[in-house]
């Protein structure tokens, strides 16, 4: 039994003419918080649905807890807490009814904990789901996902479309869950800042392709924002090896680069320029630069 909670290998998925996932592989080790970042339509939800067994991989393989979620839904789904992007909930039920309805699906449902969550999230047991605000819906859906203390949390855009106060609540609840040992989390978001706070590792997906997968620390260590001052004015964007983006001119140019800082400084010297400013870009800056440079 290896220690990857999720193993997705070389999955390809097409919807009609659209290739939603193209040779996508992703391993999520146990106990890790993995952020899946990408634009709308990049393939995040499609990937998560494969992990849930909602979509069956025609090419490639998917294993969750070492099992095939399509072949063994009972073995897999009872241990997963899933928050769907559209907060799919039965409109006609009341909050309390939903909790009672969900309980039998999950052997590890903790009713006391569920009640505690309901109080923390300030949800009224008698309130009908169709009358809930957006933030209340998200909290209700998250309650159901958390109440059975799942081994794996799959959160699809958990705080997207929510106001800052609700976003804080949701992230706070997620962090409290992470602090409990052994739990694995895969959360997809296009709010890169939030992912940066919470994730151990990040997978960047773009137009159905996996662009980069690594720990947040490694990614930040390998990317630099450098401003170079050239001896001579440059007519066009100078070619710095490792550069993902470039703005400025004609004497000072700012690059977002991928590489070792010493090598980049050497490269600058050979271009007859010196470094006047150096900083670490945010994960969002890195994401944008990687995705844009892949597009061009």
């Amino acid at each position, binding site marked *: 039994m290896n220690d990857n909670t999720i193993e997705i290998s070389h999955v390809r998925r097409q919807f009609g003419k659209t290739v939603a996932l193209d040779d996508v592989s992703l391993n999520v080790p146990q106990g890790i*918080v993995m952020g899946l970042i990408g634009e709308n339509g990049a393939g995040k939800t499609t990937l998560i649905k494969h992990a849930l067994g909602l979509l069956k991989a025609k090419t490639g393989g998917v294993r969750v807890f070492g099992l095939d979620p399509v072949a063994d839904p009972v073995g897999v789904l009872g241990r997963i807490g899933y928050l769907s992007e559209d907060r799919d909930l039965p409109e006609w039920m009341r909050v309390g009814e939903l909790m009672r309805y969900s309980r039998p699906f999950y052997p590890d449902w903790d009713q006391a904990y569920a009640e505690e969550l309901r109080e923390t999230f300030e949800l009224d047991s008698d309130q009908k789901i169709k009358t809930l605000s957006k933030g209340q819906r998200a909290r209700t859906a998250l309650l159901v996902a958390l109440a059975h203390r799942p081994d794996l949390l799959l959160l699809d855009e958990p705080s997207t479309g929510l106001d800052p106060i609700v976003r*804080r609540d949701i*992230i*706070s609840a997620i*962090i*409290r869950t*992470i*602090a409990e040992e052994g739990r694995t989390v895969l959360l997809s978001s296009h709010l890169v*800042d939030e992912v*940066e*706070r*919470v*994730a*151990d590792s990040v997978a960047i997906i773009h137009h159905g392709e996996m662009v980069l997968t690594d720990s947040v*620390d490694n990614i*930040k260590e390998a990317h630099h*924002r450098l401003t170079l001052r050239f001896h001579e004015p440059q007519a066009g964007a100078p070619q710095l090896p490792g550069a993902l983006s470039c703005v400025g001119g004609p004497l000072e140019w700012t690059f977002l680069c991928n590489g070792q800082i010493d090598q980049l400084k050497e490269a600058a010297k050979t271009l007859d320029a010196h470094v006047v400013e150096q*900083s*670490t*870009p*945010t*994960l*969002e800056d890195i994401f944008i630069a990687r995705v844009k440079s892949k597009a061009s």
Partner: protein
Amino acid sequence: MQIHISLDDGVPIYLQIVNQIKYLVASGRLISGEQLPPVRKLAEQLLVNPNTVARAYRELESARVLSTRRGAGVYVCDAGSPLNRRERNKILNERIDILLTESRQMNIDIEDVIKLLRQRSRLIK
């Protein structure tokens, strides 16, 4: 305990926590023997991954700024120890380097910088 995490900083989150706690101890806002919040609590407060806080606490323990008492929590070490004095000087040196770099770029002489330091010191009494 007032710690503020900035994502724009470029400095890794765990290191921001380390530096800020060192600063709080060196400036006396965290006193020796004072208890720090447990990892979970600080993670919730800062809205960051608990592993990040745990890493910061581990580094601070290696640096002998904090110590963990088994089952009883995390505490600030004795502030009088020479290691903490070293930390205090390190923090000041970082600020001094920034000041020196800027004054050099503006072509301000070191003697003038010292004069300015004395002037400001008299004003901030």
